[in-house]
């Protein structure tokens, strides 16, 4: 027998002067293999045409659909309703600017972070595209890819007490990016440069190490070890013996 699911969904559109924050309740019949992507679309198509949320890839790779699912940040598109109780509460990710209902402006936050932390390979010179590429150890390439897999979904930010208090805090996503470029031999920056970017309370020293981020990252990035490594590197740098 299929279940009847109850959804309690946060509704509020800050752009609409008449709108007030509230929770609305919807019910629908669960179908086999139903994901929150399917369920939310069904609710919008049939019951609440103005319901706002963000999906793009619907395959767990683009990072658009982070939300609080029964209080836990996660990717809605790859969450099966079968894994959830009969009543499902959906809230927008905290720490980001609310656009409406379940839609938050992660894009703006991520761009700001990228600009502050300069999350790009700093090259010695313009790439020489007509010559053979520089060799790289296969394991090194894999190690960079391991950290490159972050999808900027923002789940780690929502799980982070520091990020919620300090809007400029790099967060696990930012610290992981620094770790990624630090591991990349093509980037000419060295620890003193990174220290300038994350060697303070907005960076690695603002992190309280409670690791909500690590447990919740949908890509299972090794945030715990990366933050620890980075902290050690930055401490050394502060002590002037990088």
């Amino acid at each position, binding site marked *: 027998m299929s279940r009847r699911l109850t959804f309690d969904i946060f509704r509020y559109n800050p752009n609409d002067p008449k709108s007030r924050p509230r929770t609305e309740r919807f019910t629908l019949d669960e179908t086999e293999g139903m994901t929150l992507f399917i369920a939310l679309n069904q609710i919008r198509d049939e019951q609440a045409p103005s319901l706002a949320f963000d999906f793009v890839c619907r395959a767990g790779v683009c990072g658009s659909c982070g939300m609080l699912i029964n209080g836990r940040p996660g990717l809605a598109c790859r969450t099966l309703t079968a894994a959830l109780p009969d009543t499902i509460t959906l809230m927008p990710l905290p720490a980001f600017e609310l656009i409406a209902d379940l839609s938050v402006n992660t894009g703006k936050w991520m761009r700001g972070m*990228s600009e502050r932390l300069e999350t790009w390979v700093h090259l010695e010179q313009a*790439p020489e595209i007509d010559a053979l590429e520089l060799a790289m150890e296969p394991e090194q390439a894999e190690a*960079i890819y391991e950290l490159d897999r972050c999808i900027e979904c923002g789940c780690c930010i929502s799980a982070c007490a520091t990020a919620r208090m300090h809007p400029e805090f790099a967060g696990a996503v930012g610290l992981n990016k620094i770790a990624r470029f630090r591991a990349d031999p093509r980037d000419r920056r060295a620890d003193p440069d990174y220290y300038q970017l994350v060697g303070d309370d907005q960076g690695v020293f603002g992190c309280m190490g409670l690791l909500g981020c690590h447990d919740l990252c949908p890509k299972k990035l090794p945030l715990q070890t990366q933050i620890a490594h980075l902290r050690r590197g930055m401490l050394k740098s502060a002590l002037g013996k990088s």
Partner: protein
Amino acid sequence: MKAIYTDVLIIGGGLAGMRTAIGVRRRGLETLVLSLVPAKRSHSVAAQGGMQASLGNCLRGSGDDEDVHFQDTVRGSDWGCDQRVARMFTHMAPKAVRELAAWGVPWNRVAAGEQEAIINGQRVVLQEHASAHGLITARDFGGTRKWRTCYTSDGTGHSMLYSVSDRAIAESIPVHERREAMSLIHDGARCHGAVVRDLITGELLIYLARATVMATGGYGRIYGISTNAIINEGIGQALALETGVARLANLEAVQFHPTAIVPAGILVTEGCRGDGGLLRDRDGHRFMPDYEPEKKELASRDVVSRRMAEHMRAGNGVESPYGDHLWLDITALGAAHIEKKLREVKDICHYFLGIDPVREWIPVRPTQHYSMGGIRTDHQGQSPWLGGLFACGEVACWDMHGFNRLGGNSVAETVVSGMLISEYVADFCAGREGELNLSSELAGDFLEREQRHLDTLQSSGPRGENAMEIRREMERIMTGKVGLFRTGERLQEAVKGLEALPCPRVSLPRERFWDIPVPKIDSPTRQPLLPRPSCAHHDSVPHIAAKLLVRNSVMMTTMTLRRVGCAICMPYVTPYRS
């Protein structure tokens, strides 16, 4: 009226758009990028398997060069591509890979010495040369004579888009996210920019530019089941079509990928077969060698998809509540390989099917995947009919893929075309034609028209037809009647069905595709069905969005069909001729 000026307006923040932006910026031009979603969430991010470029570093790639790549591309296109474009492309692809490597893409590398691989179902040992150690490696893909597809595990598109986007951030290129181009501003001969809607506030804006570049991706979502992101609705193609001046081409050339999972339609990469995966039927029989003794599972995509459909029709499919499917078996590759090189595939199987591909077979069937057709341009990416309008990436048809795109050639095309076309755009801007000369009156007219469309829809309110139902019906028609195999009869039914849909109709002439008149200017235009923030005014705005979308999509599908209708003898309906 709020107007924003720039030299080059780029509509689309995927790989094609971002690389073009970087190119024109390097030529000293002002540029900005519009995107429905944050740029890094564009559909390019989902590309898994890899990017073709004839580096020839790994053992199985040795002897490769741009000529071989060119021949594969032309043959793979069913001889339908523009060979000049294919030439330009295969020449540039290795350069593009190297540029991306410098920008940070962690391409997988050749490891010298004995390496295990699965070829044709057999475990073999390859002896990689010491001299190639650490250079960019490649995997096998369908329809290629060499191992040519460069990759980062199965997250190639992700790594590429992040590197290119980060490069654009480094060069301070603004991206106006959550903004949608609603129509192109033009005077019949020259494009001047676009009317744009802010998807947060609902406000309409004017963007004026010397050159406008469309990089809005494909139109997969006119089908009910597609591997594409849900924002890939052919918006860019429709914008161009609606000018009544720019033209589209090859819309019937729609690619069906052999291996999307059932029922979700999410892709698992061709790399699965490239790395040694097999296709099996209800009896566990490996059937591809029966049909294609030489290339087997790695024949080009259109061939494999058609053979699969044929095999299922002959009663060999696995029955399921969602229709028949076949199996993709990658168990022979082993846990270590899958966890390293096919980790997205593993995740997708885990989250969407609840299976472990290391031990279990994956249910797959051919599913809409790629749009070969699009905005017709010359080899420089410019519309021959509407000056100042350029297009590149999946939205465009400079005709590199003909009737079938080879796997791995698309992300390569996006970056290569960005590299090349940005130069042509910059040349255009440097010339006399490239000057901005536009009456603000014209821009105002376009803005007003767009506003009127929205108002009309809004005042009709959420009563009347249910846009979602119309959309579903459209998708059903496309999926059911305009699929992999097409017949004249079913196409006719499809045209009738689409025309009967209760939405503002566009009448198009039957005879000549090339001369499509402007669909009534005073009727509303498209809208993507991006679950959008409802905007300031009114609860019915999403309804407007849905209605616009339906109208647009129906227009696109009708267009597609018209073209297919006159192309029934094309390779898409007849079994493959080799």
